[in-house]
């Protein structure tokens, strides 16, 4: 899609939220849900629609780690790094993922985004992870490895 078309569509989405009280965050979500991320060049467009400065919009986008400013990789791997998962061997899962994917947490290559998440609410089935939106509980290293290998072969 051409960049100018994107700007128009982004603007359309924004316009549907300008009358919603506190509508900026829902608008950003709607844009991200449509495109997978929030391209930096759309910041000014969004700012114009909401009658804000580009700095204010950038400030909001950069505050929230779930809002992405670059195109997501093919697969999203989120491993819980919080206490309940730590108590059940979560740190070993973290190491296994880093080693297997050869990328650090909160970085990505084209195929994988490896994300830190602090609690998925599956503490009673620790350790837990979310792969492309699907939840997994009581994750073993073997299960993690076979999941990653399956995705690598896709």
């Amino acid at each position, binding site marked *: 899609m051409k960049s100018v078309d994107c700007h128009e569509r982004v603007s359309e989405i924004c316009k549907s939220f300008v009358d919603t*009280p*506190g*509508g*900026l*965050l*829902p608008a*950003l*979500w709607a844009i991200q849900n449509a495109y997978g991320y929030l391209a930096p060049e759309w910041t000014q467009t969004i700012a114009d629609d909401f009658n804000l400065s580009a700095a204010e919009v950038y*400030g*909001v986008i950069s*505050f*929230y*780690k*779930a*809002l992405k400013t670059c195109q997501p990789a093919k697969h999203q791997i989120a491993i*819980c790094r*919080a*206490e*309940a*998962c*730590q*108590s*059940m061997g979560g740190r070993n899962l973290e190491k296994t993922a880093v080693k297997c994917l050869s990328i650090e947490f909160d970085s990505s290559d084209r195929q994988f985004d490896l994300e*830190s*998440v*602090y*609690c*998925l*609410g*599956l*503490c*009673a*089935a*620790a350790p*837990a992870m979310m792969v492309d*939106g699907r*939840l*997994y*509980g*009581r994750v073993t290293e073997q299960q993690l490895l076979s999941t990653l290998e399956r995705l690598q072969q896709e």
Partner: protein
Amino acid sequence: MTTSIYISQDSISLALGADETVQAIATAAVKVGEPIRIIRTGSRGMAWLEPYVEVLTPNGRIGYGPVTETMVDELIDTGLLKGNTEHPLCQGLTEQIPYFKSQQRLTFARVGVIDPLSIEHYESEGGLQGLDRALCLSAQQIIDEIKASGLRGRGGAAFPTGIKWQTVLDASVSGSDKNKYIVCNADEGDSGTFADRMLMEGDPFSLIEGMVIAGLGVGATHGYIYLRSEYPHTAEVLTRAIELAYQQQLLGEAIRASAHAFHLHLRIGAGAYICGEETSMLDSLEGKRGMVRVKPPLPAINGLFGEPTVVNNVITLATVPMILQQGAEHYQQFGQGESRGTLAIQLSGNVAQAGLVELAFGITIDELVRTYGKGSATGRPLRAIQIGGPLGAYLPSSLWQTSLDYESMASVGAMLGHGGLVCFDDTVDMAEQAEFSMRFCAAESCGKCTPCRIGSVRGAETIAKIRRNESRKDNLVLLEDLCETMVAGSLCAMGSLTPSPVRSAVQHFRQDFGDVNDDQMSGADIDA
């Protein structure tokens, strides 16, 4: 005759393969020619039995678990569809399982029992009776009932709910839209807590009903649920529940055909732990960065969009309908001292039987972990239990006789928080946990105040030095000094409570931080 089968679609059940189990049972039932009806419910809260399958029999629901898809054929062959109890995975009648039977389920009474998205089921189990009663009362009478129940906020701060509502009722609106607001804090970010999620997925109408009653109590016609983005499945359930509630006049311009209006909006957070702090959440709801506000003014006076706002946790609001339905008297007879009613305890981490245990305040940590948890999952001795989320203290076994109520926890320098307990076995390195607490604070601080923003970074570095035996003795002094500054100088609980897990680790598990006599470099880089 069609057999009714109940299988949870709570996130935890899905994470353990409940959808695959449902598929396998449906296929197997066709194969053996038995007509079945599968009803998806919330979770009973016995996580080690998930995916948990219940079969309705004349005596009640008989449970099997954990039923993974590979076990289905064998279970069907041994008579699962008839409720045959001989298979080792059969748990007998759910209501008779000791873990479940001994609980006092008030807030969670319907969770795991009903189809969460059926208003019919909801009403048949006592739903909407509280709202119907509230519609016959004045705002002041509703608040008096909540005050009399002794209900305190379940989000962690334990502020008396009725007093908060009274402040909002008495406050005057200032803006042009003349609104007050009900905000539900569903940003359940604390590790080791999942009660809000389970409630919202298993009985969403109780939260909606509670928010409508809160609206009637303080004179608000708009409500917001601020849900964390890490709960996508919960968002789906709530979205559908809100749609149904509008269709059935539980929300809208004429609640239950009365003259009262209430509109409910679902907002999704974006991965910021700090937005669980109420003022930061209000900024986020206004579409801004989730920065903590200075209090006063209290949100009850000057909250969302500058208007008087009730901010309550999910469990607090979802308990309200039950209090209105059964009366304050009934609710406040549970619990002890100033801690009235029940607590939804979330038992997790390294424990054999993790799950949700709703009990009146007062059970000791030791009894809970022994009777319900059945010891560690790994079979090793338990060593530390963190209570109240990532900002809660780590307690050693010598303090496990403490009872789980607000006052007793405070007396040992801990807090109950949202009621989550995370258990660790004896392989835990408490210095590593303390360092993590500081790193977590550094990652999640909103950055507004220096002790939290910079103190957490320095704290993590200092603990790392202690672990490496760099000027260990002096750095331990420095760490304590830093903790004191964070407690005294931070605006909100993020900065002021992060020292709690750190200090408790140093105090109760001193040996994990190394021997100070082994320290070769004391004083070397501190005096400069």
